């Protein structure tokens, strides 16, 4: 046995010395404080600057209420659609070999690389007054541009990489072994998906959904182009916040902003609760194998 003093000097090759550890931790903390915590607290501080009554009044405003409803509606439509699309795309890419696979992966990344404003403009060109589709749809009474369908389309476009991007590497690592085992045991495709594939990817899927949801509620650029900003009708929360801010209505703007930030925090808390609740299972299923 080496003496305890000698033991103390021995440390794992990958661990840094104390001062280095402190410096690294310190940099991270300062960075997070300046970039994340400070702005976030400012939002809430501004919202409550004239007291909680003003805050509640701002939220109770008819247009603000409409904006909240619209934002939740858009997220409620676009997130499930992107879950379906993301799982399909990840499945196809991870489990099959086909021509144009690399191209498909690049396409899925497109919304990340294209500016959201351009994404919005694409829909204006597709469904606008001078386009082929717009007037034809209008003749059937369907308004896309400056209405909810356009906002939903633009949101889906901007958010569709999140779920697929999260799942593709996960499913590629997992391969097709478990699925083959399931079908060899007599399970049909549907049973295999629900009982084997989905449980294997559920944590990745959840994370993708949370990111997708956060972006769907917060999207500004693409939505601003297609919405037409009709107050109380086609303004989502981010748009409404900008309108209020431009009208020098700071308290109302920050109140709504606080609400939006709160929605994002709620999803984060939900994720933490799920991770805590299923922590044992997570540890049991992620390690080894």
């Amino acid at each position, binding site marked *: 046995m080496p003496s305890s003093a000698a033991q103390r000097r021995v440390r794992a090759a990958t661990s840094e010395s104390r001062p280095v550890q402190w410096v690294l931790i310190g940099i991270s903390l300062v960075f997070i404080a300046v970039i994340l915590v400070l702005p976030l607290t400012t939002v809430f501080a501004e919202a409550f600057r004239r007291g909680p009554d003003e805050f509640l009044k701002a939220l109770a405003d008819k247009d603000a209420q409409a904006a909240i409803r619209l934002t939740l509606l858009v997220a409620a439509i676009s997130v499930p659609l992107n879950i379906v699309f993301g799982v399909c795309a990840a499945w196809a890419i991870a489990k099959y070999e086909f021509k144009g696979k690399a191209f498909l992966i690049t396409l899925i990344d497109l919304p990340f690389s294209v500016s959201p404003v351009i994404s919005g403009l694409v829909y204006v060109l597709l469904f606008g007054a001078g386009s082929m589709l717009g007037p034809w749809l209008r003749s059937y009474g369907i308004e896309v541009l400056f209405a909810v369908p356009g906002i939903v389309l633009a949101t889906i476009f901007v958010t569709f990489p999140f779920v697929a991007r999260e799942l593709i590497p996960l499913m590629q690592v997992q391969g097709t*072994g*478990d699925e*083959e*085992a*399931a*079908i*060899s*045991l*007599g*399970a*049909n495709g549907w*049973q295999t998906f629900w*009982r*084997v594939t989905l*449980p*294997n990817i559920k944590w990745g899927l959840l994370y993708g959904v949370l990111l997708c949801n956060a972006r769907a509620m917060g999207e500004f650029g693409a939505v601003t182009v297609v919405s037409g900003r009709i107050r109380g009708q086609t303004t989502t929360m981010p748009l409404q916040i900008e309108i209020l801010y431009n009208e020098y209505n700071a308290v109302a703007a920050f109140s709504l902003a606080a609400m939006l930030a709160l929605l994002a925090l709620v999803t984060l808390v939900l994720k933490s609760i799920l991770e805590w609740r299923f922590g044992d*299972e997570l540890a*049991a*299923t992620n*390690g*080894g*194998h």
Partner: protein
Amino acid sequence: MEVRVANVRKEFDRFPALHDISLDIRSGELIALLGPSGSGKTTLLRLIAGLEAPTEGAIYFGEEDASYKSVQERNVGFVFQHYALFRHMTILENISFGLKVRPSATRPPKGEIRRRALELLDLVQLSGLEKRYPNQLSGGQRQRVALARALAIEPRVLLLDEPFGALDAQVRRELRKWLREIHDNTNHTTVFVTHDQEEALELADRLVVMSQGMIEQVGSPDDVYDKPNSPFVFGFIGESSYLPVEVENKELWVGGRAIGLPAPDETTGAALLYFRPHDVELVEDGAALAGVVAASRRVGGTRRVELEIGGGKERVEIDLPFDHPAGEKSRIAFRPKRWRLFPVKG
């Protein structure tokens, strides 16, 4: 259940993996598909399971043509090299999976499923571990769970793809013995794939030696070991040495000298002489193979020496008793006791 593979060919993206394979698997036998990687043995197993479809040919289960039946319809038990246990399910849930996914008409009641799963867990000697998750078990235990899971559906054929490939040597030997016992108790027709000849020789009733998408030889372990029918099989199964020889006047010649072995048939010309290093006799006089010791090393209870034959052009290995006095450069004369001759083509 008999399984008959009839003239099966399989291509992947026009690259042939199996050429015109035919094989009869007898009911209740334990048969090994043995070959180096890339020989097509796993492909053949997956074709029998229905995980791949043949490009040409047919696969019969008994009298029935199963070629176009789905994996589920074939009712085979498949054990994967890397276990493929469902990691989010407990051991008991893994074993009961195959029964739980049955349509309600044929699904046993819950209590019955549980009883059978526990029974199987007992069969694979893992009683008491039913509440564990797969990653809490060792590799050997996981593979036993995988076997129990495959047996739960009462398969017509049991297929194992390199079942012990990912385990260490000690566990492999134990599981080998144990698989043999399970097979003898349950009498399933069992096909397993391996690249380990020792495993195949020890475990199987019959071996199918494969190479480059073709079957080289089918036979009992004794047959294949003692009467290999091709240079490939001779080289692949067991230790072997070979030497180019000339066949003339019903005798074998090396470098213009007769070596005291009679030609087995009327053919003449160049051939390869194959023999086992341990299956030789040392001779004092008479026609024999003679060589100079170039290297020697101790292998277990014997001494393996490398001999230079015919002025150092060819080298062969033979086994000597470990206390044999032969040193470097000493001259040794020997004759193979058992050997086979394969004519050199062209």
